[in-house]
């Protein structure tokens, strides 16, 4: 239990540091959201100065910009805890949280499925490659996946876009579903969504699997020389059982730690890939927000990304004692 408490403390620290950093960075902006909003509103006609002054006061409060920096900081935090990020500048007055939560499921869905697939694929191949070192097929497959590893997410997504969008246009390359799709929940809709997810997921899996593979393969080759594996072999335990129960069970814990550490990078990759394919998740939202100069939306997105990733890391971290009994003892 101390373990969970300590991890939770780390979670709080991350969130605190990250959000504070976000806050301070955002206040370096020359953009004054209040002035922007007022310009936008008053563009449609004249308004008298009193009304504008009132609007200014209301907007300042709405954006949490009253008082000095410290007071703004406190306001920011108190609103954040309640999930209030203020109104969006470009879609005024829709609250930012609402916009974000519309896009969030897409990103979460894509990220979870792609991560799961690449984790399973990479680790399985890696364990097999590390244990059956002579297999030719495994060597070729490994080489292929490892070769894809260094390519930045954007480039690979872009290449896939060109391949499947222009050269061999069999898969849709933008959006989460067809533009004129009927949005009632039906089998065709689900199929449509899946079709649109294939390319972004493929980009993520292809880049990600390689790193799991190398890691697992190295771990497996090392574990195979451990005493308890040799002992099991001397005991006549079958190789599949050894692979499963002795090798993989021991290798998976460091891999999980690795997963927790790379969630930030996986999130980055997901967001970038979304942008390439116009997938309606956080990534596309972020880019559009930047182009629209939507201060509160960008701020909200950055904050939420930090919180989201930190929570995910925390969840994975507390999984490890379940798999490695030695951790509990600490």
């Amino acid at each position, binding site marked *: 239990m101390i373990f969970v408490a300590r991890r939770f403390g780390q979670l709080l620290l991350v969130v605190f540091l990250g959000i504070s950093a976000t806050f301070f960075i955002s206040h370096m902006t020359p953009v004054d959201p209040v002035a922007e909003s007022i310009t936008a509103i008053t563009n449609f006609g004249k308004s008298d100065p009193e009304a504008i002054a009132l609007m200014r006061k209301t907007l300042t409060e709405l954006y949490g910009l009253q008082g000095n920096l410290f007071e703004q900081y406190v306001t920011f935090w108190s609103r954040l805890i309640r999930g209030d990020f203020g109104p969006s500048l470009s879609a005024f007055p829709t609250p930012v949280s609402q916009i974000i939560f519309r896009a969030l499921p897409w990103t979460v869905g894509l990220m979870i499925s792609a991560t799961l697939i690449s984790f399973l694929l990479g680790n399985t191949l890696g364990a097999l490659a590390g244990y059956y070192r002579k297999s030719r097929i495994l060597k070729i497959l490994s080489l292929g996946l490892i070769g894809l590893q260094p390519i930045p997410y954007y480039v690979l997504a872009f290449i896939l876009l060109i391949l499947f969008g222009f050269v061999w246009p069999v898969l849709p390359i933008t959006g989460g579903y067809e533009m004129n799709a009927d949005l009632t929940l039906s089998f065709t809709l689900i199929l449509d969504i899946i079709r649109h997810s294939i390319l972004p997921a493929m980009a993520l899996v292809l880049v990600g699997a390689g790193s799991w593979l190398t890691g697992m393969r190295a771990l497996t080759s090392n574990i195979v020389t451990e005493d308890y594996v040799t002992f099991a072999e001397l*005991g006549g335990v*079958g190789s599949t059982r050894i692979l499963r129960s002795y090798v993989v069970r021991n290798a998976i814990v460091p891999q999980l730690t690795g997963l927790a550490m790379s969630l930030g990078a996986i999130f980055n990759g997901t967001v970038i890939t979304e942008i390439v394919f116009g997938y309606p998740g956080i990534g596309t939202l972020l880019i559009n927000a930047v182009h629209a100069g939507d201060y509160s939306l960008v701020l909200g997105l950055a904050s939420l990304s930090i919180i989201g990733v930190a929570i995910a890391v925390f969840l994975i971290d507390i999984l490890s004692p379940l*798999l490695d009994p030695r951790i509990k003892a600490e």
Partner: protein
Amino acid sequence: MQTEALLHAPEAATQPTLVVERLKAYYTTKAFGIDRDIRAVDDISLTVAKGEIYGIAGESSSGKTSLIKTIVGAIRPPLHVVDGTVRFNFGGQSYNIYDLKPDKLQAIRWRHLSYIMQGSMNVLNPVRRIRHSFYDFAFAHMGLDSATFWDKVRDHLRRLDLDPGVLDSYPHQLSGGMRQRTTIALATVCTPEFIVADEPTTALDVIVQRDVLAMLRDIQRDLGSSFLFVTHDMSVHATVSDRVGIVYAGRLVEEADTPTLFRGARHPYTQHLVASLPKIGDTTRRASLPGRPPSLAEPPSGCRFHPRCPLAMDICSKEVPPMTNLTPRHRVACFAVSGATP
């Protein structure tokens, strides 16, 4: 021939359980253009009779562990067998280890041939409870249904003075001594005919050592198994082994019944090993041998002990001394002692 000589001994009226003939196993490494052959096991022949505890003694890196690993067929590249045979005889069947197909070899493991590894620290799967190891190693061989199997396991543990509760523990929750005794229990649960023990008492304190040795002797008495017992600690051999073979730099240099070896060792190296044991009341100085153990990659020519040997003659640096019988049960490989000239 030497093996025939051994067969005339009374206990070996039946077939010896283990016959090793002219075994050679080397580590071959090729890295960055350098080829190297490390001659860990260089032409060793020995036999172990049924129910006998055969001790193997020698200093660290003399090749003892490589020898027994080769004997049980647990070698991995870069270690490989260059020459010789290893044959086991149990239940009327003869098994040539290096001729067996992998699945046949797997079938005799644990049921007939078990192995207690050096260092109990890490031999059990750290992420699973101990009962899983018992299941993995023994269940398939015993051919019993689940309930009977676990009853037998618990009985076995109790007989060896272990609390059956260890089955539910994780390895790291047990002390070193407990872990070692559990490993020994695991190695003997299928009542194998041949047990190899590699330094089973090293790294344990003396009290626990005594318990472990007593345990091993009890097992040997109850099951009638043969043992191949490796340790550098001569006092342990004095307590436990029936016969002892001394290994130096990958070769067997002397072999005799324990009393004969301790009171009448003939090979200079053995004499030194025996003399180095402290005795109560004996205050003579202990002198160490000059020089150091040879590198197995570039061993001395001829007899490997000759650079450090007080009896070294001319011929010792040129020819390898063969194992000759001084008596039917005492063999030595030394030109000076056997007086043999090739």
